[in-house]
């Protein structure tokens, strides 16, 4: 049987505010447990929440960026349940009146097409703390540093039909919130967490199947794997005549397995009601307009500009514009290096490969954009051969040297482009290799001639101690052998 896969996402985006959503505590990651938890975060008796205006501004910026309706009046509700890392015994969230209404995000797919995913709404809420089940001798440790960190929860319509689309959406959202500067995008620290709702229906059917929710995926790779896993699990079940149970599941990225967390029947009655400690949030036109003024360039606009301004092709422009930090790095390279195509090649080629190999993010790159730009300048003006350029890059990467021209001078990487000197070397090499010269001249097959020509390059590079400009060597060889 053929199946349609239907996927909707709920994404928790941690907002990059300095302080928590309802208290003045710092939101910085990695502090010693419970050192960033105030009386409010601990839900001490008599303490009250005070809404962080910056969190609201960030949510509004997000809403504007997805072309959503901004609700002039939104309401915070209490979602009641008991858990040790939920100090008040309720989470303050927005149920019926979220700050951001319906919007959409367009996802670029590998086949060059674009897919529009509708966003149902996005609401503001507070994060819980962390329960630490290890290291406490059978007891549980509670760290409330994260409790009260502002989140927006973005809820999509079930508009995605494959893991590719869902991951494409996730990447696009990541790109958007980091471009907006409202989220640091660090998924390893939980700054973006994805819940995936998946159901299957017979191909072409208009009736949605029963869905499961896989919670708390914090990498694109896990997300892709979890979707593949869950689609397969559901398909196996359905094809064996089984039924899907509406439930929440957890996916273990290390084992590639998932397990049921709780079924619909076991779900809590959260007893939502409007939080009486917080007034409804009423947004003025001025506030919204101010947020609009703060919107930076968004990924789609940036991509178009890269095509226009730098003459990049669609693919390069898309690759370089999606991640705000990569885009800004690239632009720094171009500012110094001038040659946009060469810059694009280096950023996507050598640099990306090295970052991947060392598992570093672009912000952690040991080679700065301006250094790479300087390198591009020396490649473009033929001072460096590609082999020489890689050597300079290595030196920059390892941090032994900082300045491109100093490295070139110290390591003698300057390419010889003096035609007279190069001609002399060619003459000497040809004189030493008479058989090969004869062979070349006798060869009629173009490909074979090319290969034979390459045979002279090794000795030439050796003679020039690697500094001869290979392009010039080739030109001189051709003219001498064929002239």
């Amino acid at each position, binding site marked *: 049987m053929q199946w349609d896969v239907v996927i909707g996402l709920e994404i928790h985006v941690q907002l990059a505010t300095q302080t928590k959503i309802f208290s003045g505590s710092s939101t910085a990651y990695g502090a010693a447990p419970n050192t960033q938890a105030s*009386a409010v975060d*601990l*839900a*001490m*008796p*008599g*303490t*009250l*929440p*005070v*809404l962080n205006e910056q969190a609201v501004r960030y949510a509004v910026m997000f809403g504007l960026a997805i072309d959503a309706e901004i609700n002039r009046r939104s309401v915070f509700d*209490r979602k*009641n349940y*008991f858990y*040790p890392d939920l*100090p*008040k*015994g*309720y989470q303050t969230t927005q149920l019926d009146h979220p700050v951001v209404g319906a919007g959409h995000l367009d996802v670029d797919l590998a086949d060059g097409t674009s897919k529009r995913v509708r966003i149902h709404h996005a609401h503001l809420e507070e994060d819980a703390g962390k329960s630490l089940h290890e290291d406490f001798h059978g007891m*549980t440790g*509670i760290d409330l540093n994260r409790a009260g960190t502002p989140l927006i929860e973005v809820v999509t319509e079930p508009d995605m039909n494959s893991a590719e689309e869902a991951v494409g959406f996730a990447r696009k959202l990541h790109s958007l919130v980091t471009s907006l500067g409202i989220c640091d995008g660090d998924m390893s620290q939980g700054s973006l967490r994805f819940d995936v709702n998946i159901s299957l229906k017979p191909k072409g059917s208009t009736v949605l199947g029963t869905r499961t929710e896989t919670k708390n995926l914090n990498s694109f790779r896990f997300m892709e794997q979890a979707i593949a896993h869950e689609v397969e699990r559901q398909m196996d079940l359905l094809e064996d005549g089984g039924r899907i149970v509406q439930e929440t599941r957890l996916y273990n990225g290390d084992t590639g397995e998932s397990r049921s967390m709780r079924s619909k029947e076991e779900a809590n*009655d959260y*007893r*939502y*009601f409007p939080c*009486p*400690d*917080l*007034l409804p949030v009423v947004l003025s036109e001025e506030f919204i307009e101010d947020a609009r003024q703060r919107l930076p360039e968004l990924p789609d606009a940036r991509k178009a500009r890269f095509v226009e301004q730098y003459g990049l092709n669609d693919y390069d422009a898309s690759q370089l514009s999606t991640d705000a930090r990569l885009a800004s790095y690239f632009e720094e390279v171009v500012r110094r290096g001038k040659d946009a195509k060469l810059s694009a090649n280096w950023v996507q080629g050598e640099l990306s490969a090295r970052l991947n190999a060392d598992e570093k993010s672009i912000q952690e790159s040991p080679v700065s954009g301006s250094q790479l730009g300087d390198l591009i300048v020396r490649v473009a003006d033929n001072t460096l051969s590609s082999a020489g350029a890689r050597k300079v890059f290595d030196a920059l990467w390892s941090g032994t040297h900082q300045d491109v021209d100093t490295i070139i001078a110290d390591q003698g990487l300057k390419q010889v482009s003096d035609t007279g000197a190069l001609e002399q070397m060619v003459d000497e090499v040809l004189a030493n290799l008479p058989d090969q010269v004869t062979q070349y001249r006798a060869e009629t097959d173009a490909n074979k001639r090319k290969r034979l020509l390459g045979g002279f390059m090794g000795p030439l590079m050796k003679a020039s101690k690697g500094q001869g400009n290979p392009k010039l060597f080739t030109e001189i060889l051709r003219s001498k052998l064929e002239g």
Partner: protein
Amino acid sequence: MHNKSVAELSRELESGSVSSVELTTHFLQRIHELDGHFNSFITVSDESALAAAAEADARRRRGEATPWTGIPLAHKDIFCTRGTRTTAASRMLADFVPPYDATVVANFNKAGAVCLGKTNMDEFAMGSSSESSYFGAVTNPWGEKRVPGGSSGGSAAAVAARLTPAATATDTGGSIRQPAALCGITGLKSTYGRISRHGVIAFASSLDQGGTMALTAEDNAMMLNVMASHDRQDSTSTDRAVPDYTATLNEPLKGLRIGLPREYFAQQLNADMEQRVREAIAEYEKLGATVQEVSLPHASLAIAAYYIIAPAEASTNLSRFDGVRYGYRCEEPKDLMDLYQRTRAEGFGDEVKRRIMIGTYALSAGYFDAYYLKAQKVRRLIQQDFIDAFKQVDVLMSPVSPTPAFIQGEKTQDPVTMYLEDIFTVAVNLAGIPAMSVPAGFVDGLPVGLQILGDYFSEARLLNVAHQLQQATDWHLHQPE
């Protein structure tokens, strides 16, 4: 010395005829001698009170005194006091020492007032008789075995027994006005948002409001001058300017339009009580006020709406008491569920548990619309009743409670009878308007209160109206044996 009002004591401190240390010592002695009869205090802070008094005297010598500098007072044990345990009269918080002051407490500290200690109350302010305290019931100074009302019964009894010249209190459904009436003192519940709730242990957030208790309306005005403030730590606090509430106490009442809500004089009202209330109103006519009957058509729905909304909010406000971070924790919990269940079963008293259960039920899926949502709609109607009434009259007057102080234990077995104690007071909280209770004579030797209700932020007017009655009568000056 202990029969004097705050205003009088303030003048004496200013003249130098008495020091704050002397005053404070005197009241502390009275508490130690007499409070065994009343149990109006949970905590008496001798040491910190005397230190604060010495500091107040020094401040006065430096010429930096406010009218409150050196005046002793007590805080209801629902206001957090940094370094002094704050219990809400619950086992759950029996040893809880807050690391912060409630804004109200901080305001009094800043003014130089001296905190004598923390007063007893119904557990988490849930009750109308101050019998549900983990620290034992409070006794009304006006009658052996009589309740002082609640929930601020400790504050009311302490003021009535002259153990403190003034006490702070809170009012969620009548918790200032009813005990003030039953103890024969003057109390004011301010407009919702006028006094910060920061540091006030929450019962029902949309109804809770701080307020004042003292012998006279003038003293209530002096208290409100300190307590009313805009507080950025409380999102529901108003940023309206705070007037000097003592400045308008002597405005003449000629032409004051008094409304008598028909519904508040109908049923369940003790005939002698009604007589006293009507006599007080007659005093106002002598002062030039006019009296007319008005209607609050939805008055009969107030108790029902209140006993949905207040428990609903309470049920989630009290979720934080889970034994995890502070407060009472059961011995040797087996697992998480056991920790929750036993901590809360052992830490909360019966009335608190009852209200948590009612509130949880009212908010549950399938019942929310029928109970909570409906109650909120009723609340709107009740608000509108008052808005309409205040188009016709300046103030409303009514009894505070259906009967004078009842016998301890009389209503504890029947919660609904106890809830009906609030029949004339809860609508005020649902609407968020200010109201006072002013002494209006006696029935069988027990005090009767007159309730004065005003439009939003009309506290200055209410205090003026109450003060003028106290210039014409001496009911507020009677004291128990």
